[in-house]
Every structure is written in C-alpha cells, then in structure tokens.
C-alpha cells in the first residue's frame, strides 16, 4: 500500500480492473489474466477482497434502507410528503448577497471572530471539564474481574480505561476504543459484548477530554439506545448528554 499522500497509477488501475471484474465488464481473456494475477499478487488480492466486502455490505445495507423508505412511503400521505420535501428545499435556499451589505457583513465578522475566540476557549474548558467531572463515575464498577476467561481482553481494557482516567494518549486510546465499541455492539456475541456499556462510556469520556463534543454525543446517544433503561450507565449517559447539549 502506498503512503498516506501518494496514490500510484498501479493502484488506480487495480481499482478499475476490480470494478470491471465485479461488473462483468471484462473480456474472457482479461478475466483469465486478472484471476491469474490474483493468485500471485498479494496486494491486489487484498484490495479485491476488501472491495468485494465493501460492495456486498453496501448492497445489503442499501437494500434494507430502500425497503424502509418504501415502507415509509406506503404509510405516508401526500400532505406529509409535500411538507417534508418543502422543509428540506426551503432550508437549503440560498439568498444572494448584495454589494452594499458586504462591508457590514465584514465588520460583523470581525466582531464575531473576537467573540468567537473567547467563546471557543470557554467552550474548550466546559467540554474537557465535563470529561474530568464524569470520568471517574464508574471506576470501581468497571474494574474487570474476569479471572481466566479472557485475560488479554481484560488487561487491554484496563489499560485503556486508565488512559482515559489520566487523559493520556487520548488519540490512540480513542482509536482503539472505537474499534472495540463497534465490536462490542455487534449483534453476534464476542469477547467484548458484555463490556459494551463501559467501553462506550469510556469512549465518550475520552472524546470529551479530547474536546470532541460531537463524537462524544454520538457515542452517548448510541450508548443510551444500547443499555437498559434505568441502568446506571444508561442514567449517567442521559445526564451527561443533557449537559453537553
């Protein structure tokens, strides 16, 4: 794989070939050559496999979404549909500026910038402060005592939670917790499923400490939907979400 900034011609050609193969647009000879190359070119094989997973996932998710929309259309009436369309188009309406307003707008922008800088600092302290305030709420509950069940998972989670507590290595911690959060909230049971509430909670706190309010809100919203109504994590997540709003 090329580094982050460089995409080579070969990689783009591989994309085209993979797409052509998936769409049945190759000639018999081209397809034979492509399949032969897949046997020996590990990078091409990995790319092709990933694209296949991507295409299949999009088909499955897209078909489900389309079915939901069709159901929604069937249960709607003309008035509701017209109202929805009107709301969307009117929100997006652009009003053209006139030249005589430009000076006034520029001056207002300068004032807003000064106010904005002050507000941003205040906002930073508020958001990260919430992370500190709520960060220690579940420290004792989340200490993992799984015994020999899965020591590796337990050790890793403990280490990640400690990082969140101490506000240490937040970028790497958030990245890893995000992966585990997705795993823990999958429909199929795995080593992380039972830890989902605390994984989600710590991810939200980590995002707050990292001053990423939107990410924290997203995690908390999902955490609320995934935890039992009235449970400790559910109650605290709602409380925290309310404060962030």
């Amino acid at each position: 794989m090329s580094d982050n900034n460089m995409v080579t011609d070969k990689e783009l050609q591989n994309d085209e070939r993979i797409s052509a193969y998936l769409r049945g647009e190759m000639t018999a000879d081209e397809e034979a050559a492509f399949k032969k190359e897949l046997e020996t070119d590990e990078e091409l094989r990995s790319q092709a496999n990933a694209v296949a997973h991507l295409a299949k996932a999009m088909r499955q998710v897209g078909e489900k979404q389309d079915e939901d929309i069709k159901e929604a259309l069937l249960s709607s009436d003309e008035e509701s549909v017209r109202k929805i369309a009107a709301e969307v188009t009117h929100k997006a309406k652009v009003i053209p500026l006139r030249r005589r307003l430009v000076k006034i707008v520029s001056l207002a922008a300068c004032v807003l910038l000064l106010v904005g800088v002050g507000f941003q600092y205040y906002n930073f302290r508020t958001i990260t402060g919430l992370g500190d305030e709520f960060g220690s709420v579940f420290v004792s509950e989340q200490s993992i005592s799984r015994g020999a069940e899965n020591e590796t998972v337990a050790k890793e989670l403990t280490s990640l939670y400690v990082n969140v507590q101490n506000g240490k290595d937040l970028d790497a911690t958030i990245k890893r917790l995000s992966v585990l959060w997705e795993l823990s909230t999958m429909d199929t049971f795995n080593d992380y499923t039972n830890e989902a509430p605390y994984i989600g909670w710590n991810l939200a706190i980590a995002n707050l400490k990292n001053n990423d309010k939107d990410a924290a809100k997203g995690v908390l919203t999902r955490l609320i939907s995934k935890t039992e109504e009235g449970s400790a994590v559910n109650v605290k997540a709602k409380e925290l979400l309310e404060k962030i709003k």
Partner: protein
Amino acid sequence: MTIQMPTYSEKVLNQFAQKEWGKVQTFLKKQYTLPDDDCNDIFQESFIILMKNAKEGKLKDMTSSLSTYFLGICRNKARELLRSKKHGVNIDDDYTFDAMSDVKDEKINNLLTLDSAKSLIEQKEALARQIVHDLPKPCNELLWGFFRDNYSLQTLANMLSKTVGYVKVTKHRCQEKFRKRYGDLVKALL
C-alpha cells in the same frame, strides 16, 4: 404546549429527502441551469410521484437503487418543465445517467473466497455493514454513488463539482480506509 414528534416514517423520509436534495439540486442546476424555485418545485413534485409510484406497486420491479430511481423522476420532471417553457437547452444531452452495470453477486462471491481467514463469515459481514453505515464525507457520497447507485466516475465528478482525477484518487483513498478499518476490526475479532 404539546410538541408533535415526527413519526418513524417521517424521520426515514426526511433523511432520504435531505440526502437526495443536494444531488438533485446539483444535477438540475448543472444540467438544465434551472433557478432555485424551479429546482424546489421539481423536487417536491417528484417526491409526491415517488410516493404515488410506491402506492401503485411500481417500485416492486425497480432494479436500480431508490436514489437512482428518484433522480430519474426528477430528470423527467425537469424535461417536462423545459418542454413546456420551450427552453433553448438541448434536453437530450444528458451527462448524468452515465450509469454502469450493476455489480454481480457471483463476482462478489468469487472475490470473497480470497479471504485468508474463512471463519466467522457472518461476523465479518456484520462488521463491513457497520463500517458502511458510518462512512464520513466525502467517502459516503463517493462509495455509495459508485457501488450502490452505479454512477460512473464522470457522473460522480459532475455531482460533486470535482474532476474525474479527484474522484478516482479520493475513491481509492476511501476504499483503503475501509480496508484498513475492516482489517482492524477483523483482527480484533479473531
């Protein structure tokens, strides 16, 4: 005061409308240079037609994605409007539906057999679905447009007001991001 919360259907349709409005507006302005008011009217009328077609069972035999189908309705409404106005624009020159053929299930499955770890197939597919649910911009527009709506690179470039080169490179990067994320999740699973 009672606040009326939107129903689930209204939420679903609202999300769909918001997603489609950007595409439709860009298409109508670029292709037919229509003003805002005409774009608004076409969008609203097309939404009604979509609902009516759904109720008449016309969506059952739909072969494209719903998004592509809806854009088709908008295009037809735009052409109707232009014909009624006897507009000078050549309405037969259409950049938009440079659509590609659909991705074939058999081909997808052939490439999936290249998976080095063949166990936990269902869990892996679930992971892939989760990732595509939460794609960031512009990856969501590019990848959904390419793999689900079957838009060509040129069409995507026109929709996003970018060059084909930009679309190719960005799409590749998005695919690589998916590959990396999917790989990370699968490693954690195994």
